[in-house]
């Protein structure tokens, strides 16, 4: 692991050897990722581009055309409209969580302990 030192005016100097081996050039943008207990630099472009290319090439021309059409539609949505798509079912989930019921009768949950629980007994907890 390399340790970098913050220089005056908050500049961070990446050692020339690391820049070379990572293919970094002056002017390149390097994402700084904010994990919960650390900051780290990650040279992600190549891996991300490879992933995208691999997926795109795996599709037929017709599928690529349809994928572009679908992308046009999705990208035309506002952030709120996209949030609504991905939040479908949240209200029902909240209701399910708040339902007032006997805790030993959990509705649509599947119980696997019945196969090991002695007949006629109920779990506690």
């Amino acid at each position: 692991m390399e340790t970098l030192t913050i220089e005056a005016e908050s500049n961070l100097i990446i050692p020339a050897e690391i820049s070379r081996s990572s293919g970094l050039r002056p002017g390149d943008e390097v994402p700084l990722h904010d994990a919960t207990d650390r900051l780290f630099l990650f040279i992600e472009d190549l891996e991300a581009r490879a992933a995208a290319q691999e997926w795109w090439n795996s599709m037929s021309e017709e599928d690529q055309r349809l994928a572009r059409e679908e992308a046009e539609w999705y990208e035309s949505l506002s952030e709120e409209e996209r949030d609504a798509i991905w939040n479908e079912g949240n209200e029902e989930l909240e209701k399910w969580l708040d339902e007032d019921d006997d805790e030993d009768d959990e509705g649509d949950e599947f119980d696997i302990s019945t196969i090991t629980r002695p007949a006629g007994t109920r779990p506690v907890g």
Partner: protein
Amino acid sequence: MNLTFQPSHVLPARVLLDKGVARRVYEFRVRVAKNLPPTQLQTESMIVFRRLIHRAVQLYITTECANILQRRQPRYAKTILIRAETLSKGRYLRRWARRLRSFGFSPEDAVVTAYASFGLISHSQIARVEVVVTNDLRLAKNFKAQKANIEDRFKRMVSNLLDPYSSLKLPEVVTTADALAST
């Protein structure tokens, strides 16, 4: 605060991707199809998703996430649905999610975290997820900040249950950036 180039190399065997991660993987591909650069969050999510697959980590998503993906365009959604197994709600999942609510988690965050402990594979076997990967920094930070108390509550709950529930362990909750740093 550490600034590091070199990730650590401890990989879990079973990981639950929360809905936000699935969404960003989906959106990464939409951006590619549009010839637009993906956002940092979309890129992080995609790379974590790929790396976990390549390293043979068993991936899971929740039933709710799978339901949403099944209604989305298959060209973008099917990879996630194929690569990640869908968990169903196991017994005591709701009970644990309710307990988690008392630690300040939103209903959705409480349920996804509870899936990690009480989610079932094929309605019959506990998945025993080790790590939940999320884009939600608030969820990850809240979990980490209160982990000792959450773990204590979890142990007290499962210790009163029969096998196999009594041997369950609490998962870790990490962000995609955390996962990127450790894969």
